[in-house]
Each structure stands twice: as C-alpha cells, then as structure tokens.
C-alpha cells in the first residue's frame, strides 16, 4: 500500500514513524518547507543562538532512509480525490492508496493595510525565521502585533539580540482570553521588566511602506506612528487549507474529520493543525494547534491505517509555554474569568514570578484545573485527580506530590493550603513532599491495577 503524507511537521512525521512501526507500507512525506523534520516550537531558539538548525531536528539525517520513509521536497498544487492522485508544482503526478493531510497552519492576517509589505512576517515556517534573520541586521525597532504565545516568543527573540521591541496587545492584559487576571498581570510585569515597550489595548491600524515597498512604520489604533523596520504578525494561526478550497474535500475552518480522523473523501485523513474535529470531546476544541495534539493524531491515524482502528482521544486538556523566564503549565480547565459554579484558589509568591491556582467545583468540591506559573507540576498526578474529580481537600493534602521542580527548589504547596485554610477556616496540612518514590507509592495505593 502506498501512503502519501503531506507535511513533515510533528503530525505527519509521527504518523510516518508509527506506520513504519506497524507495517511495511510504502511511505512518502512531501514538504515544501524543509528537507527534514524540525521542531517548529524551537524556531525561536535558533534565532536566539541557543541551537543550530541541526539541533532542532529530532532525528539524524540517516534516520529516514533507514526507516524507509521517503522524503520529497515539493509542493502539492492539486489533488484529484476521485483518481487518487496528486500533482506537484514540479510537475510530478503521484498516485496514493491512502493520503494523510498534515499541512499545518498559516499566520492570521486580518486585512491590515500594508500587511503584505516586505518586512512584515508571522512566525510559523522556517522561512519566517529566515525573514526575521534577514531583517534583523541593523534593525532599530520591531513591532509585534498580537498578544499570544507566538507574539511573546517573537518579543523574546528580538530582545535577545538587543533589538528594541514594541508589543501591541489588543486586550487589556497579556493573553487574558486564556490566563486569569493575576497570572496575566504577572506576565505583563515580566514583559516590562525585560524592557519591552508593551502597549495594552492597542491595535494595529496600518503599516506604512517606504519607497522600496518595505515597512517603515506602523500606525496604532491610538493614532500613534511608530517607526520600525519589522512588523511581526502574531495574531494567531488558522488551518492552511487555501489550496484545498473548492475541491470535494469538506472544509469548515479546517478540514473536517470524524473521530477516526477521516475526511469526507475515501482514504483521505487530516491530522494536526489543519484538522477540525466534527465532534470534539468535552473540554476540547475542534481545532487545537498545539504540538502534542499533532503528535497524538499522528499516532492515532497510523493505527487506523494499519488495521487497528483507533478513535482520537486527547484526554484531559493540558498545555505549557514559557513567557521569557516564567514557565507556564496548565492541566484541565482554567477559565480566565471564573464561571458561577467554579471557585479558584490562588497563591502567588512574594517575588511575583511564581503562582499556583487550583480551580474546583464550588458545590461538589471536585478539582477541575491546575494553573502553574514558575512551578512545574507532574502531569500524571494532575490528570489522575482531574479524571477522578477528586475533592479539593484531598488534592490539597497530597499536593506536595504533584511538584515536579528539581531537587532543592523550595516547595510552596503548604502556602497554598494555608491560603485555603484562611479562606475556609479549615486546618488542612500538606502530607507529602515531591519525588518519584512517594508518587509511585501513592499511585500504586490508589491504582493498584496499573
């Protein structure tokens, strides 16, 4: 059987790897972006000089031939779903038995005047990184538009090269559509601490060109003109499905798939950023452009193609990021503004760079979410408590176990519990400290079967 995979990001490559593990099918991965799979999430570190291109490629170059995964550097221009063939821009015609679409995202552009000028770029593809590199020499200011995860990464990137950054954020506080207000305020402070010119509640109105068609300045919604040689457009991403529009493939915002990641076309699957799940599980969104969902979908689709039909099950939501020097982890459901039925318990370190938040059901006491800043928590325990809907007080007493910070780091769980006791008049104490032996004992006691 001949399997063609479009896209060599984490989704496509994970699919290829697992198909190879499970079968002897012929596998070809087509990408126009790069010869070899690289970690898209690590692009920033190449720009900052932490790593080279080869360091962000998780597999050595011999890996592909050894595992009989053919790599083709080309762009697919047309797919004939009826005849099961695709055309490439180099004029090749390739037949497939199964087709996996893992074509990723593209940076959003909202019709701003000047958005296609030279010096205006998103940060998603390797080519975006090259553009940033090209424009960085002699750059005296970069303006970044869009207060999300990629925007703050881009700010950190330019900052690492001592290039002044103005950061336009539409909302009244950084990423406050996701982060609760205290955490969001913490990141605002941290952005400013790094000397970034943070402009909250400010939008981009227009990008002005110079005589060579390169951006020279922007105008903000407040009417201010800010001279800059680079504009970063980081207002989110959306599925890269333009070239598939007006075909038989059913597309909404992304390529619509069922729980087996099958599209409406026979033997065609879609995974990763470009896929839109028709009926997502509770607590999950139809399109989730994050690293691990791409990985999970790739593994899932590989099983389905190799006669082990598997429904996509991402489990309980989790994610992580790093905002300059502050690490962020979330497990479960954390709402930026608490709904009526949920309560949340929050502790923040006096230094203002660490916090723990637990969300729980006001009535039943069941834990619903963990939000961590500057502190690492153990995925496995958090998921177990969330899955079981464990009572907040039970969680609090064992919370020390969830801590995943390195040895000798201070543990702050008792301070969170003290806050809970203060609010409720309770007298709970943290019974356990972190460390794998204690965690294993705890898990075995509560889950003897596993």
């Amino acid at each position, binding site marked *: 059987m001949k399997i063609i995979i479009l896209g060599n990001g984490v989704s496509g490559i994970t699919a290829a790897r697992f198909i190879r593990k499970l079968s002897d099918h012929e596998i070809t991965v087509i990408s126009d972006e790069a010869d070899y799979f690289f970690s898209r999430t*690590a692009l920033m570190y190449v720009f*900052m000089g932490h*790593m080279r291109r080869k360091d962000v490629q*998780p597999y050595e170059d011999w890996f592909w031939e050894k595992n009989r995964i053919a790599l083709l550097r080309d762009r697919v221009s047309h797919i004939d779903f009826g005849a099961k063939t695709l055309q490439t821009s180099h004029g090749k015609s390739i037949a497939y038995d199964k087709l996996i679409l893992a074509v990723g995202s593209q940076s959003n552009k909202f019709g701003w005047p000047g958005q296609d000028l030279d010096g205006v770029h998103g940060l998603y593809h390797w080519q975006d990184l090259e553009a940033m590199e090209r424009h960085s020499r002699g750059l005296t200011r970069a303006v970044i538009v869009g207060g999300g995860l990629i925007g703050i990464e881009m700010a950190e990137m330019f900052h*690492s090269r001592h290039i002044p950054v103005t950061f336009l954020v539409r909302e009244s506080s950084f990423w406050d559509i996701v982060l609760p207000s205290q955490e969001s305020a913490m990141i605002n402070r941290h952005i400013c*601490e790094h000397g970034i010119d943070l402009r909250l509640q400010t939008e981009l109105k227009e990008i002005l060109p110079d005589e060579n068609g390169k951006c020279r300045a922007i105008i903000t919604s407040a009417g201010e003109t800010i001279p800059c040689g680079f504009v970063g457009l980081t207002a989110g991403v959306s599925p890269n499905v333009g070239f598939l529009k007006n075909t038989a493939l059913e597309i909404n915002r992304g390529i619509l798939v069922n729980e087996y990641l099958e599209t409406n076309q026979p033997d065609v699957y879609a995974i990763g950023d470009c896929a839109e799940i028709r009926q997502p599980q509770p607590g999950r969104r139809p399109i989730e452009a994050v690293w691990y969902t791409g990985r999970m979908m790739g593994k899932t689709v590989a099983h389905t193609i190799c006669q082990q039909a598997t429904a996509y099950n991402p489990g309980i939501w989790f994610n992580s990021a790093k905002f300059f*020097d502050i*690490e962020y982890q979330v497990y479960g459901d954390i709402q930026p503004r608490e709904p009526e039925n949920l309560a949340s318990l929050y502790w923040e370190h006096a230094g203002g760079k660490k916090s723990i938040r637990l969300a729980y059901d006001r009535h039943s006491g069941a834990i619903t979410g963990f939000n961590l800043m500057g502190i690492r928590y153990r995925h496995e325990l958090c998921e177990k408590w969330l899955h079981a809907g464990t009572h907040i007080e039970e969680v609090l007493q064992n919370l020390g176990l969830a801590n995943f910070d*390195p040895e000798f780091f201070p543990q702050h769980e008792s301070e969170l519990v003290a806050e809970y006791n203060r609010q409720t008049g309770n007298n709970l104490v943290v019974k356990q400290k972190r*460390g794998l032996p204690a965690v294993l004992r705890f898990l075995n006691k509560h889950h003897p079967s596993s």
Partner: protein
Amino acid sequence: MQNESLSISVPSPAYTSAKQKIAIALAGVGILLVLVVWAAGRAVAPVPISLAAFGFMLAGVVVFVREEYLKYPEGIKNNGAWFRGLTARGVWGWLLGVLITGFYVCLYWFPQYLTGLIQLFDPLSRLLRGTTANQWFVYGTFYTAAVLFMGIKFIYKYRHNPYQRLRTFSVMFFQLGFAFLIPGLLLRLQQPEIYFTYFWPLSYYQGTPMAYQGYSGSGLGTFFFFFGLAMFFIGTPILTYFFGKRWYCSWVCGCGGLAETAGDPFRHLSDKSLKAWKIERWMIHSILAFVVLMTALLWINVATGRSIFQEYSQIFYKTYSFAIGSAFSGVVGVGFYPLLGSRVWCRFGCPMAAWLGIWQKTKSKFRITVNGGQCISCGNCSTYCEMGIDVRAYAQKGQDVVRASCVGCGICSAVCPRGVLRLEGANSHPPAFLSRTL
C-alpha cells in the same frame, strides 16, 4: 541563515557593555601578566605579580558576570551561544584551544618551558606546602583558580536554580579543599601528598604497587591506599545505587569540577550523534580494561618476584601514563574544551566514569524522568547535555533516561522550557499513562 554558526561573521561586541569591556581588559591584564612570565622564563617580584595576575582575573570575571547576568532577570542565559566565536568554534575558540593545549604539552613533556611560572608560584608553594613549587603545583593553582573563578560565573548564571548553586559550591569546595589545600598542608606536615577525592583507576597510580610501597611507613598513606580501594569496590556501588554517578562526577570530582565551571560555556559542543555514542562505549570500556590489566600485571610482577613480566608491566604502565593519563585526560580532555566540549575525557576516557557508569546503568535508582506529554522536542536538553546524550530522544518518547554516561548535572532539566525533565531516585515508572499521552 546559510551559516550554521555566524560566529566569525557576526562579532558579539555589539552586545558587550562598556563595563564589560573594562572587565575584559582587567582579566586580559591578568592573563597577560601570566603569559609574559611564561614567555620570559623567569619571574621577577613573584608575590606582587602573582597577586596582581589573579586579582585582575578575579576582578575581571566578577565585574563581567555581574554585568552579564545581574542586569537582567534571572533565567536561562544561552543567548548567542552558537553565534559567539569563543563558544561556537570560532577564531577565539581555536585560539583558546591552542593556548590550553600548549600549556598541557609543556606541563607533561616540557616542564623546562614553565620555569617562569614555577618561579611565579614559588612563594605560594612555600607558604602552603613548605617547599618549592614545581610544574604540578603551577597546574594545581591554575586549575583551582579556574574552578573557583568560573564557578562564581556559573553561580551567577544559574542563580535561580538551587540545585545548580549547591552542586557548584560542592565542586568548588572539593577542588579548593581536597585537591589543593589539604594535599599542600599534608606535604608541609611531611606526610604523603594525598588527594582524598581521586581514587584508582582515575588516579591510575593509586592502585599500583609503586603507590603502596611509596606509602610504606605512613599510616595515613596506607589508610588512603585501602580507602581508595574500598571506594572503588564498595563505596562506588552503594553511592551510585542511591544517587547515580553524580555523587562523584558532578559534585566531587576535580575533572568534573573543571568541566562544570570553566567548561560550562562549551557544553553544547559535545557530539550528540549515534555514532559518537558507539565510539564512546567502545573507548571508555577499553580504557577501563586497559587500566585493570595494567594494574594486574604490575601486581603479578611484584607477587612473582618480578620474574614473569619484568619490564613488560612497566611498558604497559608507561604507555597508559603517556597516552591516557597525559595525552587524553589533559591535552585532549581540557585543551580541546572549546572544540569538542567540556566532557570529552569524562565521556570517552575516564575509567572511573566507566566503572560508575556500569553501576548506574545496571544497578541504580537514579534516572531522569519525563513529565507526561509536555515535551515539544525542541532539543535544548540534548544540545546542552555535556555528555552528548540525546536526551530529547527519550523525552519525546516518555522514556526514563538511564544512561551510563549521565553525570547528573541537571542542566537538561534546567534548560527545558516546558518543565519536562526531573532527576529522580526510584526503581521504575509506570508506562501505562505515558503510552496514552504520547
């Protein structure tokens, strides 16, 4: 981004503040004083010159790193590691490599060219050891200064990380105390010059009949001889079972101490390829076998009244001493820091590391665990692993890292942007959860 490294084409001074330039000048004056004395072949006014040299170097380091790190919020500071010539095998890296290599070549085989430096440290040697300096004292002094000065730099760099701070205090303490002051004081007290933290087979001489006979008449020496053997046969398995080889390699050992401090800016230069791992396994175990064979031959020779092997065992000893003890551990091991990274000796050569590694791999609770599905395969962990372990290959599979070579420095965990890695001590990890989340 056509160049892998822009180290030669993009000079870094644009990011260097005026204060840092002054700091570089200060340290430069200190280094220049040393180089002049080295080149001159004799030291005039050794006390003020040596004090000035170290004073300038220390002042330079402290001023530089305070400016480099304290001016910014605490966090991971690897910006530009692959852009700077010094740390990305650029011109400065090669020059530094040549300088250190040259020093080691003189040290081992042409000490007559170090006369100036030996004179320079003569007053210090008399003060500490009650005897004249030799090239080994010069070496020990520079070595200790490098661990201390660059240790200070490392502590500033990782000031947010208690594990790194403590570990660095530890290697600085053991270097200054056990590898510099105590051996010197013992010499002053007419005792054998004992380095209590160097055991056979890292210190290959320690296990030989020559060492044993040399200690005869000294209770302390005889004690140390057996203490060293006990550390090899009993201490190492027990301590490694509980803590992994890090109890030695990244907390106590002098070679490790230098690698973790002076070598830290070069840690990303280690080779991560599968091929390098294959070479590593062959090489380090061959050297362990070599040192065991060599020592056994020497003892058999003594036991049989020097009748069987006579000069052959000495040839073995001399070969090991030249090729492994000097050329590999010193000239390549340290001289090539700026080219091959900081742990070449520890990874490919050290027989003690091989022995610790066998225990770590087969009988130890120590492992680096992976936090669920949070890995984004970015590669920071692998890049900054000084032992060239492809940590990411484990992290993205959710597999515990159990590797003979891991020295437990904890940098992979520190540089991970997603909080994925943790150094732990436990026997197993349930795989069911991970297989679902990955």
